[in-house]
């Protein structure tokens, strides 16, 4: 059916997908171009071929904020929060799927309730909580709301339920306890779900803006989205500097994306199928 397509139809299809790709890629290219265009030439807008490319905007950026530290903050917070969510989530998933205890459904209901409440409902009291505990403007404050995610627990619980209990029983006969069953049988078998949760945890932390905006003041604890937004506040009309900041923010995640592209897309696709 597909091979019988006529040549014009095929060409139209290729033209369409390439135009789509151009629309997706060109803004990124434009960002890079703007960042290396001398400030004086920006008044009429940059051109695709830059006349006197310069790294001045990047120098201004380095002077304006501790950008390396901000990049490391972003990466570090994202990695730590991902690991925490995987650990806490998979353990809770095992607990709900394999252990029997009173009020299990009620407790699981509480987990689901926290899943439905959006961050903006929590922002004010969470901010006050951090202020009272004297934790505002710290790494801990950035991490606190992401130590455990009910979404992760929910997704991983489904995956654990999918692991046949016969495997557990066989291991129990061999003398394995819960910890060994969890680490050697369940965890390896729910790897796809773990990957999905990892992708969402990492992207969620990497993109997070509202919470850092509320709880962080000092540049040395800022993450990239917050740093960029403050940068824009400082250099409102200096688009070369703002775009240099954008390039610097894109590069780390682009590298992660290049390395793990297949898994990331599979992870996202995985959530939609259910």
């Amino acid at each position, binding site marked *: *059916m*597909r*091979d019988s397509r006529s040549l014009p139809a095929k060409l139209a299809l*290729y033209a*369409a997908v390439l135009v789509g*790709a151009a629309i*997706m890629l060109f*803004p*990124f290219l434009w*960002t890079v171009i*703007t960042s290396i265009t001398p400030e004086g030439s920006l*008044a*009429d807008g940059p051109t695709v071929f830059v006349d006197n490319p310069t790294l001045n905007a990047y120098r201004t950026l380095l002077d304006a904020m501790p950008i390396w530290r901000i990049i490391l903050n972003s990466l570090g917070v994202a990695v730590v929060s991902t690991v925490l969510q995987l650990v*806490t989530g998979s*353990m*809770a998933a095992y*607990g709900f799927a394999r*252990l029997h*205890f009173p009020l299990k459904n009620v*407790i699981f209901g*509480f987990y689901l309730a*926290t899943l439905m*409440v*959006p*961050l*903006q*409902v*929590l*922002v*004010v*009291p*969470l901010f*006050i909580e951090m202020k009272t505990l004297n934790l505002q403007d710290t790494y801990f404050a950035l991490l*606190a709301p992401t*130590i*455990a995610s*009910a979404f992760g627990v929910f997704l991983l619980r489904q995956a654990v339920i999918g692991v046949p209990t016969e495997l557990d029983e066989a291991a129990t006969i061999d003398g394995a306890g*819960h910890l060994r069953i969890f680490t050697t049988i369940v965890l390896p078998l729910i790897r796809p779900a773990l990957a999905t949760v990892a992708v969402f945890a990492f992207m969620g932390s*990497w*993109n997070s*803006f509202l919470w850092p*905006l*509320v709880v962080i003041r000092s540049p040395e604890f800022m993450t990239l*989205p917050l740093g*960029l937004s403050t940068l*824009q506040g400082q250099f409102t009309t200096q688009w070369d500097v*703002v*775009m240099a900041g954008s390039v610097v*923010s*894109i590069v780390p*995640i*682009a590298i992660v994306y290049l390395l793990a*592209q297949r898994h990331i*897309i599979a992870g*996202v*696709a*995985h*959530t*939609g*199928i259910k």
Partner: protein
Amino acid sequence: MSRRGGTAAGQPLSAVTEQVPDTSATPPSLSSVTASRRRGGDGGHAPTSRRRSTRTQKLKKLGWVLFFLLPSAIPLFIFTLVPMVSSLWVSLHKWNLISPMEWVGLKNYTNLLGDEMTRRVFLHTLIYVVGYLPIVYAGGLLLALALNQKLKGRSFLRATYFLPVVTSWVVVALVWKWLLNPTNGLVNQLLGGLGLPQPGWWTDPHWALPAVILSSAWKDLGFVMVILLAGLQSIPTDVHEAAKVDGSNAWQRFWRITLPLLSPSTFFVVVISLINGFQVFDQVYVMTAGGPAGSSQVVVGQIYDLTFRYGRAGEASALSWILFAVILIITVFQIRGQRRWVHYA
């Protein structure tokens, strides 16, 4: 905690430490019965040891439950459940984050519901959702249909379309703020070159929301495409083959087979987009900050401003609960309504 789970029932160690007075191996006698009664009414000796082991077993089981659940339960309790309840509490008060709270009952809610500003921010949010959803769905579907064909470089194209999804909202908003710059932005230069009118985009009250919608749709197109592509690939090919044998054309097959069988994925996209859409904030804050003149202020932006600019935390909390109620009602309606149009194969 794992240590407690590690000591098995009936092990000498636990027996000795927990039951020191009861170690005599004498057969059940009057004295031992009274002794055990004094200890709390336990029965004879043999049942005691069995009960003892079930008790330690129960403790052990509880230990495992705590071991597996506490790492998630404690943070969820402290950083979600407690703030949730205190947010309700704050919403019943007048409070500027500094001076003591003043009880006002439901006044924050009634004030907000009667307030012109509330209606405006909800209207803007609704315009955003209504503008955004058809664009990402139609665009995402077209890309998914195209990539579901035999194409050279398919995985490269798919990765390219998905690139904006991993880029943060703040970056996307800044890049598009620059592209949509009214004077020297790329889009207006292109429009000018074609002799078309050049809108003021984020500087014009009528164009601020469309600017936000455009950039948001650009970012999420790849996400919707990946979900729909996964849906398309799960449609069995023999259904299409059978319809073809029956003489249907491609157009009919799309409307009668592809779209209905894609409805679970469509449902997912719609539900997620509405939930996220009503919570739109980052890109608005960066691109327009709700302006010009409040023309693009959305609900979450208003919550933020009420709290941190105007010191009206009580009203902000109340508004966040109204937003939550709206999202919840819409989601429940969709889940109820899905029976009518979502077909699970």
